[in-house]
């Protein structure tokens, strides 16, 4: 309940935050604090210094330019879930953000904190992978970007370097004829995803599937992209039998497990939850 002592630095601008990070290389960034503070209260994390980036204006805001939506790192889950432009243009992000934890946590927790914490049971990582989002950073050398598919490296490890700050994610807008769904099988205690399925499908005018993405949270240490299975579904009409058969063949080595849900059970859930998410996405695409 009582975090260990730390030095506190408050950055007013991105430049100041980067400079502070140079000076205090062991420091942790503090945004909403909803991933970090619980760890500090249990003393599972004891950073010597925190750099509070909560007021850095450059990290805020949602913007729509061209074919992409850019969401600043400090945007909260609640802001994402209620943003008209996100609900309109990238509804999958809003659907997942509205399922993160509970309303009070969503009021403070940020997308940047969530993605860089990279908890395997978190809802947004799989969604970012399914949508081919791009993650933007800035470090001492300037700006850099990584595709979400390459951002998550291992359990709670990302491509974000210690001297960098996550700026924003950029997400291609949903096209006409596409549909998406985020479906979550929730842990009754933590609210994390035991299995969360992010599905995106696109049909051509003849009703044939052009694109199919299915990415799972909670099953592997990092978002699990079921791309091989999805490949089998391209060109089909995504009817229930075809989807069921394809997903029955889902295979994975070493799914994560705990006392609530074992690895084999999570793999089984992926087949069911994945199927339901895909069928729902297809239904929405046809609407």
């Amino acid at each position, binding site marked *: 309940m009582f*975090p260990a002592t730390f030095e506190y630095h408050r950055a007013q601008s991105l430049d100041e935050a980067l400079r502070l990070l140079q000076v205090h290389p062991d420091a942790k960034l503090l945004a909403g604090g909803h991933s970090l503070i*619980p760890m500090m209260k249990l003393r599972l994390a004891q950073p010597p210094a925190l750099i509070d980036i909560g007021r850095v204006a450059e990290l805020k805001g949602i913007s729509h330019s061209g074919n992409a939506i850019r969401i600043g790192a400090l945007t909260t889950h*609640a802001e994402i879930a209620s943003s008209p432009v996100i609900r309109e243009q990238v509804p999958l992000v809003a659907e997942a953000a509205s399922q993160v934890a*509970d*309303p009070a946590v969503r*009021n403070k927790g940020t997308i940047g904190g969530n993605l860089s914490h990279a908890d395997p049971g978190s809802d947004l990582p799989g969604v970012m992978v399914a949508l081919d989002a791009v993650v933007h950073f800035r470090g001492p050398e300037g700006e850099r970007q990584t595709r979400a598919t390459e951002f998550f490296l291992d359990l709670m490890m990302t491509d974000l370097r210690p001297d960098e700050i996550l700026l924003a994610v950029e997400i291609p807008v949903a096209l006409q004829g596409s549909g998406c769904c985020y479906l979550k099988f929730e842990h009754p205690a933590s*609210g994390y995803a035991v299995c969360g399925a992010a599905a995106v499908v696109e049909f051509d005018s003849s009703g044939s599937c052009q694109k199919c993405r299915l990415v799972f949270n909670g099953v592997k240490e990092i978002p699990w992209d079921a791309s091989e299975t999805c490949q089998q579904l391209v060109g089909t009409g995504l009817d229930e039998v075809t989807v069921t058969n394809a997903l029955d063949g889902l295979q994975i080595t070493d799914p994560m497990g705990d006392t609530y849900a074992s690895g084999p059970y999570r793999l089984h859930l992926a087949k069911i939850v994945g199927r339901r998410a895909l069928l729902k996405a297809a239904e929405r695409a046809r609407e």
Partner: protein
Amino acid sequence: MREITIEVNGKSHTRKVDPRLLLVHFLRDELDLTGTNVGCETSLCGACTVLIDGKAVKSCTQFAVQIDGSSVQTIEGLASNGELHPLQQAFWEEHGLQCGYCTPGMILAAADLLKNNPQPTEEEIRKGLKGNICRCTGYHNIVRAVQSAARSLQRGSEGGR
């Protein structure tokens, strides 16, 4: 130590605090506002819920220094001019509390819920309060209380037009 200024229930407070001081301890130990309670350390029970700049937040998951310059409303500041807030009134009338420990957080979470969704369904109320654990009531009368408060807030806003 760092000097911060936080407005709590309409009154500004300036204090020098250790950066690691959690907001909930700032309220309880520095300001003696003990209505905000602590029930867990993993941001799950919601007993410590307060409104920061109008939004429900778990005050055990914020450092006081983070919200320097913000305004906080706690349960002590909810009644105005001696008149209970409709949620307080409804929790009383509908027996929405027993031991009362989760109640301040529950009421403030419900206030945020009704601000965003003035006429919630039972399911929306239940999902909206999933961040607040009550071990006494089984939630039955909490749901009734929020429904009843929604109705009286609705009446109040219609009456005000």
